[in-house]
């Protein structure tokens, strides 16, 4: 039986803001819409940036990709600050409980010793890869045109810092400060890690916003995350040593699936707009995926040993499938 509560309903003058109405019609808008569309100023800028004097403060020219409307790159997750933080807080809560569960029972001590060593060897240097990803998504957040893209890159940069910190926490739980030190030393000097470090440093000087988006968020993360968290953590390592490590890295596994939806939507919308965009994105995806795969060969061997080649082939295939759905040509 329905309880029919009465409220005093006043007749509003309008349903939403003018710029929202222009886009979506005269109806009540969602919070994502009101918080995102046309938030970035677009006209009559006063001064050219001293840090980039040939362009404006906000400028579509910071990438070769051309879009009539940069708000076509909307986020399928519809994250604005409120929904983003609340989603992440729920995940954080679950992970906190996992870490507590493990630490209270001393489960880190009953891990297969070999797997534990491989896990530290694989995951500690990835703290630095995550920092590079944070820097790159920050770059995109700073220089992307339009709030739809810039906002989502801000959230991605935060996610990567969060991942770096979860990895740090894992290192302190499974090892200690020396494990982190060893990971950093490997990152800086071990032959196995140099191709990946070289890759990351090359992304740090890549200043086309969309090219960097492809290099970092599609090519590298599209291979690295499934390789490490699916093939290794939840695959080969779990078979040998159970789910303990997976519990500590569950954020990364969940995050990759969720973020891929956003990355693919952005690339799909950009590619669909013109053959020129499609060609550019295809060219970038192919070049960067090729470099990323090569850089990941030695890393995959550390993580997966004899299973490395098959795993790398699997994740490469999966990336190809994503590219097909996105509508770009990926050859690598």
């Amino acid at each position, binding site marked *: 039986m329905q309880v029919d509560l009465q*409220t*005093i309903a006043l007749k*509003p*003058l309008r*349903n*939403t*803001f*003018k*710029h929202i109405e222009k886009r979506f019609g005269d109806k009540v808008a969602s919070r994502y819409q009101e*918080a995102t569309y*046309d*938030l970035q*100023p*677009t*006209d*009559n*800028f*006063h*001064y*050219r940036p*001293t*840090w980039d004097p040939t362009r404006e*403060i*906000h400028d579509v020219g910071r990438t070769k990709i051309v879009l009539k409307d940069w708000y076509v790159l909307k986020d399928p997750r519809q994250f604005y*600050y*409120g929904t983003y*933080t*609340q989603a992440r*807080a*729920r995940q*954080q809560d679950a992970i906190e409980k996992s870490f507590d569960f493990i630490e209270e029972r001393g489960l880190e*001590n009953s891990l297969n010793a070999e797997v534990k060593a491989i896990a530290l060897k694989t995951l500690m240097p990835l*703290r*630095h890869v*995550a*920092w590079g990803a944070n820097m790159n998504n*920050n770059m995109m*957040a*700073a*220089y992307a045109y339009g709030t739809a893209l810039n*906002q989502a890159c*801000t959230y991605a940069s*935060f996610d990567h*810092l*969060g991942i*770096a*910190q*979860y990895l*740090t926490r894992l290192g*302190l739980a499974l090892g*200690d*400060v020396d494990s*982190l030190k060893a990971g*950093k030393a490997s990152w*800086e000097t071990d032959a196995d890690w140099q191709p990946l*470090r070289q890759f990351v*440093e*090359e992304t*740090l*000087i890549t200043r086309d916003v969309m090219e960097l988006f492809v290099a970092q968020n599609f090519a590298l993360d599209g291979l690295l995350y499934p390789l490490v968290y699916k093939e290794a953590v939840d695959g080969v390592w779990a078979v040998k040593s159970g789910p303990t490590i997976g519990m500590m890295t569950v954020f990364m596994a969940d995050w990759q699936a969720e973020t891929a939806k956003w990355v693919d939507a952005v690339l799909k919308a950009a590619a669909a707009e013109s053959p020129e965009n499609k060609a550019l994105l295809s060219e970038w995806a192919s070049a960067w995926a090729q470099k990323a795969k090569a850089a990941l060969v030695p890393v995959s061997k550390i993580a997966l040993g004899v299973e490395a080649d098959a795993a790398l082939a699997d994740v490469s295939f999966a990336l190809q499938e994503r590219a097909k759905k996105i509508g770009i040509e990926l050859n690598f």
Partner: protein
Amino acid sequence: MDMNVKKKLGLKERYHLMTRDLAWDATYQKEEEIYPQLAYEGIKIHDWDKWEDPFRLTVDAYWKYQAEKERKLYAIIDAFAQNNGHLTVTDARYVNALKLWLNGITPLEYEAHKGYARLGREFKGVGASVACQMQSIDELRHAQTQIHAMSNYNRFYNGLDDWHHKADRMWYYSVPKSFFEDALSAGPFEFITAISFSFEYVLTNLLFVPFVSGAAYNGDMAAMTFGFSAQSDESRHMTLGLEVIKFMLEQDPQNVPIVQGWIDKWCWRGVRLLTLVGMMQDYMLPKRVMSWKEAWEIYFEGNGMALFNDLARYGIKVPECVEQVRKEKEHITHQAWLTFNSANFLTNFHTWIPSKEELDWLDAKYPDTFPKYYRPRFEYFQKLEDEGKPFFTAGLPRVCQLCQIPVFYTEPDDPTQLAYEEGTYMGEKFQFCSTFCHKIFDNEPEKFVQSWIPPHQIFQGNCFPEGTNPTVEGFDPIRNVAAYYDIEWGRENGPFVGSEDQKNFAKWRDQTTKN
């Protein structure tokens, strides 16, 4: 099984592992190419590791605490909307303060988000970068929560619906717009001095307190709750401002004069911008919190000066402009409101002449100036209004080409004289409201000649709708500028008395209280 006794990590060491330990020295690419913005301002940083984290927040803690605040805030915003919360405000004139906020301040929150995102990337030190990243996402929060808090007001009152278009075009919004774009277009060290130090530390209370307390005093639960929810964000921002200034000053003595120059510039630009906020505080809050004069005395002459005492050991001096600001605090808000009230045909908020009680309050708060210089003017304009001949300014004001405020300021020692100042650059004349604006211009003329000055743009014919022919018989430039601004003529402009806002508020109040 080995039970290793792990070294217990201190908070500082743990946070370092979570942040600055993540970075490494690049060897495959040149540092100057990874961080191209760090050298050109002349600031020398020898050791980013000397940065002291102003706060220690890991990302997961950030998510947790901020999500908790968002949950609470949105619950209130929802309840506010469901229960016609806008009708609890003291009176509908108050909503005009929100119009100033949404059109003038909210876009700046977004620009701050962008500015700090840039610094998050371009600063080499991880500590500094992470602090800037947290501020960047906080500012995005502020922009979006303000939009959401005011969304319900937009459905019922005019002047809130078109901030994207108006903020980029209208003659008075170019004041906040040019202020922030000056910072955004500057290098990273100037940006952080301007915003984190001068604005977020020195002047922050002068923006926050009037608006948020104004909301609380006037029954605006939505904006008030936003403000309280933002308070802990603002304390982080203040600590960042303090740390960054100390860090730059301690890194190299040659940074001191550069930073001093920026402090001087941005304190002045900040105070000029705050004219609009002071005006709001003295004139637009039916239930007033305190006068601009009082706020300035507490938050700057009290707290702010204590800060400069702290910085004296680095060689930093109190900005020269404070003496002029001290004299001007008695005048600027009245001068501003008089200007807006006679130009309200071209604003997207309403104005009104203060009531007798309000004039009495102003007399009491400004005993040395208001009764002598300003009350007589308001009473004269009220007389004209009562006679059906309200006064409106004809023509466009002379505008300062630095701060972009109309030259309604008077000489600091003679309130009967408008403050005109002129300069020349490359054979052209430039106009200013003060010696301080003039000095700032002279320091960077190549930057400030680029300004998009609304009255100049209007005179150049750039502020008419596309395809307008200004040479036709009977051409009305003001109506055409209003069309370029997309002003809903007769609805969102003009006096409060007789406005749709006034009528509706009264009607709805009746609807919700009478049978």
